């Protein structure tokens, strides 16, 4: 089985309260040197068949219509090589 990963992040112009909360906490935890934090979602999809163009197009459509809300979020779709193999 092959793994496809969909990363969904808020668009850059959209407020990210989650990322902000993490960032505000960093100094208190003693972590410096981090200019910005953004938090999003990661979906790992295990496909039954081969990861061909048709399958990827399907995942892309799924991401566009369901996994991401494109009014406020961007997404990327990619095939995960290494980990898929090791799993």
């Amino acid at each position: 089985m092959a793994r496809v990963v969909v990363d969904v992040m808020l668009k850059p112009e959209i407020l990210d309260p989650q990322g902000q909360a993490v960032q505000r906490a960093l100094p208190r935890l003693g972590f410096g040197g981090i200019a910005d934090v953004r938090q999003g979602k990661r979906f790992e999809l295990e496909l039954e068949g081969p990861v061909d163009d048709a399958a990827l197009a399907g995942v892309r459509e799924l991401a566009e219509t369901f996994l991401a809300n494109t009014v406020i979020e961007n997404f990327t779709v990619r095939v995960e090589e290494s980990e898929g193999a090791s799993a």
Partner: protein
Amino acid sequence: MSGENGKNGKNGRNLDTVEHAARTPDTEQPWAELGLKRDEYDRVREILGRRPTGAELAMYSVMWSEHCSYKSSKVHLKQFGDKAPHSDALLVGIGEQAGVVDVGQGYAVTFKVESHNHPSYVEPYQGAATGIGGIVRDIIAMGARPVAVMDPLRFGAADHPDTKRVLPGVVAGIGGYGNCLGLPNIGGEVVFDSCYQGNPLVNALCVGVMKHEDIHLAKAAGTGNKVILYGARTGGDGIGGASILASETFDSEKPSKRPAVQVGDPFQEKLLIECTLEAFHAGLVTGIQDLGAAGLSCATSELASNGSGGMRVELDDVPLRDSSLSPEEILMSESQERMCAVVEPGKVADFLAICEKWEVTATVIGEVTDGERLEIYWHGERVVDVDPRTVAHEGPVYERPYARPGWQDALQADDPARLPRPADGKELRAAVLALLSSPNQAAKSWITDQYDRYVLGDTVLAPPEDGGMIRIDAETGLGVALATDGNGRYAKLDPYEGARLALAEAYRNVAATGARPLAVTDCLNFGSPEDPAAMWQFAEACRGLADACHQLGTPVTGGNVSLYNQTGEAAVHPTPVVGVLGVIDDVARRTPMAFRDEGQLIYLLGDTAEEFGGSAWSQVAHGHLGGTPPRVDLERERLLGEILIAASRDGMADAAHDISDGGLVQALAESCLRGGKGARIVVPDGADPFVFLFSESQGRALVAIPRSEEVRFTDMCAARGMPAARIGVVDGGSLDVQGQFALPLSELRAAHESTIPELFG
């Protein structure tokens, strides 16, 4: 925005300053894209004596939008003030951010309902969440501590696929924001109708409490006072969002009319509440204003025009999330969780210290000047120089043409009397189950269980009770009750009566809890004002509500208008949502709705006539909408209210439940299920069992009276001329309508409670 007006180079070379605007009168400006009409743009030029700068154009266009200026509705809303009944309870009337009502013992209550309809369709979770956020800031800005929220909702058909997208998102958003803010949700409505398919109505109400001396109004008095912006940083999200979204109809050909909605941060808002109230109590605030639709444009122009002087603002000092924003964008941004305060110079340090304590970003962005102008600077250059009144208060006012639609007569002539009715006990039984399991009449606990009703520890009544009730003083038991109602089906049949019916129902719900109704807020959800039929509906509803408020002695203290709830030609049902606030001297006296003790006597108060126009039965059984809505007699409503309040005060009633959509049988079933006790009901002699059970005649309620109180209660009703019929007794484990049918509570419960989870769970 593009070209010379919109963009400023990094060094400000292309900045559209006031001087530049005066020198370049012929520059093309994107007024139409920003939603202004030609004559409105011309008026701006006339007011300024030159063309507006890009920043000025941004301000006028958002502030003169329908959403912010009420340009189509103003002439009709005037009646709420003109016809307002005299009320000693009204401390702050219509016109402020929210009205303020005296509830005694030195306490005042402020409450308001607002719409967030369009954003909630585009992005249900965030749209609804920021709807709660916005109305809560209105309440904080009055100096009150928010104590509860409510959410009247309307969706498309329950089984439509898009409703499965919209409803769960809206509910999660309202819960996500309200729960995180720590405000109990004490009521609302959920109505399904295909007329709301592309235009769900998401209204949100907040109620807050303060001491009389803490009332604060939004104004910027006092030359030299500082203007402090505090809360979230300003970003590029939702620029012109609410105002433009709420001022246009959706048109799938113009996706550009769907700007990004804003993302809410309830945690930031919680800090804003604490920080603002602490600053109020420390006496540090001269004036305050929340930032909602039209953001800084609104806050600065309203603060300045409500004060005596002018104002000077340095836009460079606005904390930004995105450093590339232009001055126009900063002025129009609708980033959430921001407030603006006016503070005396000597108190600024203390104010900032409180903000620091709550880890809220706060910056002085300007000061009150002794002039009359609102001047805004960017990189040291003046980009706005206006009379703030012309922005905030002197927008266009339209007398839109309106006309009773041609189809209204035919609709009213389509009398439900022709519809086939259940003929015997067996058919009645089936009709009861069909009614109670229909999406509109089914239990809403799957929704309301997603809302925290316990937080703050003062919730005395919460869903599914007739009204929500909050204790505001633990020593004396002083409390307030609220209910929201509106029936778009009734209003479609007759918008004037529909508005009166909405008030009557909310009033009745509040009185049923034992609280005395005091004041009204309303959210008027209608179609396009440019359509004479929708405008007629709006005008009629305003007239009806103003007349009814006058008659019941409950002034409108504030509210909201949402127009353009329309997809193409199809408008939503005219939907006036009315919120009524009542006061109760001791919450221990409240009357709940549940039948709890066997042997309690069940009385029906009021008269039942054959009234099925717009009824739940006609919808469920026949998908029918026609005829005229039930008659409403407001004197009778007032009398019913007095009886219910007296019964509560004097401990005569164990339970009370208003009768509205679905009729008597709906109310009986709800009271039985709430208490887990059955009822034996006798149809009065000569009454038609179907009409008795299903009619939606107004001015009625159900009460459960302990035997020991029966004589006292019936004597009171007789003395006051209130028809009271003993129709049964609390008993057993079924709803048993004698001679007709018996429904075990388990069967009734399954029918009533499974519908919504099956649709959305």
